[in-house]
């Protein structure tokens, strides 16, 4: 890296941050694997990759949220080992995260100067703080009312407050993690102008984004990541959206899938039929608390889907495309504004998890710790919970019958590493996930819905989960899978539906499943046309 520092007069050629062989592991997942990235001072550096490619982790390593397992982070030529965001912060590094971190009940000015207020004898000097705010506004060209309460601002305005806050602290590097995911087209343009103006003030920007056109348009340098590795350090002039997509997918490490179950007989009665479903989470003007949820995206007629017994249908899409909202409202976990769900022809009526279970549905939710398991309870209790009625006599749970049930289902789901009364917290991530499969391995099951079935599990467990899904379809279950891992969908499914901004954007059937095609539709039309031109 010495060649970058010597001889080049232009300040833009000086490295601001260098990552050399940085690795970071979370449990069984290698989030970042020997990454080398040079971020030049005063440049906009784009960082792209699929969900889970390690982009955000790289951002967090630089920002001091995570410490590296190996490798070095060099800031301004000095090796830095930040142990907290505070230390990175005092070195001039600020992050603007997907979830904004502001105090909603305080004013814009209060938020901008939080912790760096002008004080006199320990009291906040309002006049001076206000003068500093005006100066800041003028310098950055951001227009915003300093007295407005932050909680009442739109996402875009809150983002501007965060940017002001970063500049108020004289940050030299601002890490933006998916800054445009929740913005409208117009707000996006404003953000881009703002980002460019920051660069003119010689502030370095690390711009992590899903939107390839945006990155191609804005960035001076681009880094492409895949499976935790840096696959390409490049610049926009030599790339197209299509070439970036190719780099993001690449050749996969694991092509390890069971043979596909035979194609289902189309003349059978539909196992799961969804008509005109409008999940409440996709219809509101600005869903609160969920990052990246699209604004007013849902088509007026709602979402339709039919799954045959023995069929595996995948739902692809970016985080925030509405995949999870869709399957949760099919199951009744979240409210739907309108629509109807039938299992083997029987209408469920008002959607509710209890009704869904009684009609033969099972949901493996997105987060096993938050929504799936009672972590401090035993394997037995976690698995038998929805089936207690069948093993209860006179109100008392028959432990013998319950044990038989749990032993049988955990064996067929290949849960290993604990007795029936082991707390599930003590199991590995893969076995915890298999517990959730065991929970639904009952004879009455007709429809299995799995949201990110292999998130955070090791490779060995991944394969056995794929086997479970495949076996379930062979047994005549209708299976619906949501996944961020395209190879998983392509490897397992008969059919893949691509969601974008709350709609079904495209549908592909085996043998025409193609990762690049799916990804292009997930990212949107722009990327697709650019590639074909």
């Amino acid at each position, binding site marked *: 890296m010495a060649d970058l520092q010597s001889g080049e007069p232009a300040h833009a050629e000086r490295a601001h941050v260098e990552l050399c062989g940085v690795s970071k592991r979370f449990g069984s997942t290698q989030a970042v694997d020997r990454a080398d990235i040079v971020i030049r001072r005063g440049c906009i550096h784009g960082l792209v990759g699929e969900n889970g490619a390690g982009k955000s982790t790289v951002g967090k390593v630089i920002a001091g949220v995570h410490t590296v397992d190996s490798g070095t982070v060099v800031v301004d030529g000095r090796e830095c080992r930040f142990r907290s965001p505070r230390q990175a912060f005092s070195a001039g590094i600020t992050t603007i995260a997907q979830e904004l971190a502001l105090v909603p009940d305080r004013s814009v000015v209060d938020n901008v100067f939080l912790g760096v207020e002008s004080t006199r004898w320990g009291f906040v000097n309002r006049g001076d703080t206000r003068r500093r705010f005006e100066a800041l506004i003028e310098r950055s060209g951001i227009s915003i009312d300093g007295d407005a309460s932050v909680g009442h601002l739109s996402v875009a305005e809150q983002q501007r407050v965060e940017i002001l806050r970063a500049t108020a602290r004289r940050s030299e590097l601002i890490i933006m993690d998916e800054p445009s995911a929740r913005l409208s087209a117009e707000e996006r343009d404003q953000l881009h102008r703002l980002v460019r103006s920051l660069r003119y003030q010689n502030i370095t920007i690390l711009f992590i984004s899903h939107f390839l056109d945006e990155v191609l348009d804005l960035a001076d340098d681009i880094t492409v990541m895949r499976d935790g590795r840096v696959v390409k350090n490049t610049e926009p002039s030599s790339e197209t959206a299509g070439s970036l997509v190719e780099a993001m997918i690449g050749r996969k490490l694991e092509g390890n899938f069971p043979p596909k179950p035979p194609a289902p007989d189309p003349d059978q009665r539909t196992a799961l039929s969804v008509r005109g479903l409008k999940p409440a989470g996709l219809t509101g003007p600005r869903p609160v608390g969920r990052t990246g949820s699209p604004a007013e995206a849902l088509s007026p007629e709602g979402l339709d889907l039919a799954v045959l017994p023995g069929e595996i249908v995948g739902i692809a899409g970016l985080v925030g495309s509405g995949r999870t909202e869709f399957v949760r409202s099919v199951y009744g976990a979240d409210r739907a504004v309108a629509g109807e769900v039938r299992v083997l022809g029987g209408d469920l009526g008002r959607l509710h*998890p209890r009704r869904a279970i009684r009609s033969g549905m099972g949901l493996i939710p997105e987060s096993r710790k938050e929504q799936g398991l009672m972590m*401090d309870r035993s394997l037995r209790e976690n698995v038998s*919970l929805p089936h*207690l009625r069948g093993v209860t006599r006179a109100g008392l749970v028959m432990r013998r019958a319950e044990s038989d049930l749990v032993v049988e289902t955990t064996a067929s789901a290949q849960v290993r590493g604990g007795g029936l009364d082991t707390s599930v917290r003590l199991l*590995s991530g893969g076995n915890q996930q298999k517990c959730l499969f065991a929970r639904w391995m009952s004879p009455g099951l007709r429809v299995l819905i799995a949201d990110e079935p292999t998130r955070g599990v090791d490779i*060995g*467990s991944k394969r056995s989960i794929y086997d479970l899904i495949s076996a379930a379809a062979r047994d005549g279950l209708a299976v619906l899978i949501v996944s961020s891992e395209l190879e998983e969908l392509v490897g397992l499914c008969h059919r893949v539906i691509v969601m974008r901004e709350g709609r079904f954007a495209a549908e592909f059937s085996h043998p025409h499943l193609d990762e690049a095609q799916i990804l292009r539709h997930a990212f949107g039309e722009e990327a697709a046309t650019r590639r074909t031109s």
Partner: protein
Amino acid sequence: MTDPATLLQPSGPSRYLGVLARYGIVWVTLALFVLLAATTDGFLTGPNLRNVLDQQATLLIAASVATLTMIAGGFDVSISAVAVAAPLVALRVENATGSVALALIAGCAFGLIVGMANGSIVAFARINSFITTLATSFIVFGIGYVVSERSIMRPSSDSFRSIARTRIAELTTATWISLAVVVVAWITLAGTRFGRHVYATGGNAEAARLAGVRTRLVVVVVFALSGLAAGLAGVVAASRTISATPSDDFSFVFGVIAAIVVGGTSIAGGTGAVWRTLLGAFFIAFMVNGFNLHAIDPIWQRIIQGLVILVAVSTDAWSRARRA
């Protein structure tokens, strides 16, 4: 790489330490029992132990049922208010009708209604259960003053005292009632489907809901049962003293919570057991009994009692942090 299927189980000494910590309340209660039996003449005698059982009756009635509430993730401080107001309602009915049975039913029904109201507010208005029951406590204390017309109430006939003070096989009916309540609460929690739903709701309400548990109903029912038990405890207490006085004294619930927590039931919900509360109550009772037999200054008794609760809660927090 380790085999993904292997379980991260503690081995060797740390495993025994785990068992020791897990059943800690059993060992310390036994140890205290042995210690007191060895060091004092008065402790290991029939009359003294029967007396301890009788004195613990009201607390055990309320605490064994409140254990379910706490495991479901709730916190019921209205137990004090119900235990004060329910006997006043019962005695009002007794004075009017002369019937002890009706009085008992009225006291329990009063507790049940307050509990159902608490549970409904917590489950449907989603207000924090501590705040909810604190607010309803004041209302219920107020009702106590209204019902009693701000004066001490006494039963019209002597038979009211028979609720608690009849002797069957050497033990008072107060003791028998408390043991019956403990057994029912124990079986409900450990053996029934409802008990499983209580653990699941407190362990992870969202996961329980997605597995088909009616978590709101569970919350309403545990608060209702807690109110019912507090009403019964109040009536039994009034029967022992043959009177009931309106007040706004919160102290009863603190004893209840102390017994639950010292027993090892987590205030975070999801884990615990009725037998733990039973032991927790007796550990504290033995301690107080031992202090008295050793003639230790009551002021010091309080300080030591407070320290013991702190130790119990920090042990819980410590073992939780180790597991996480």
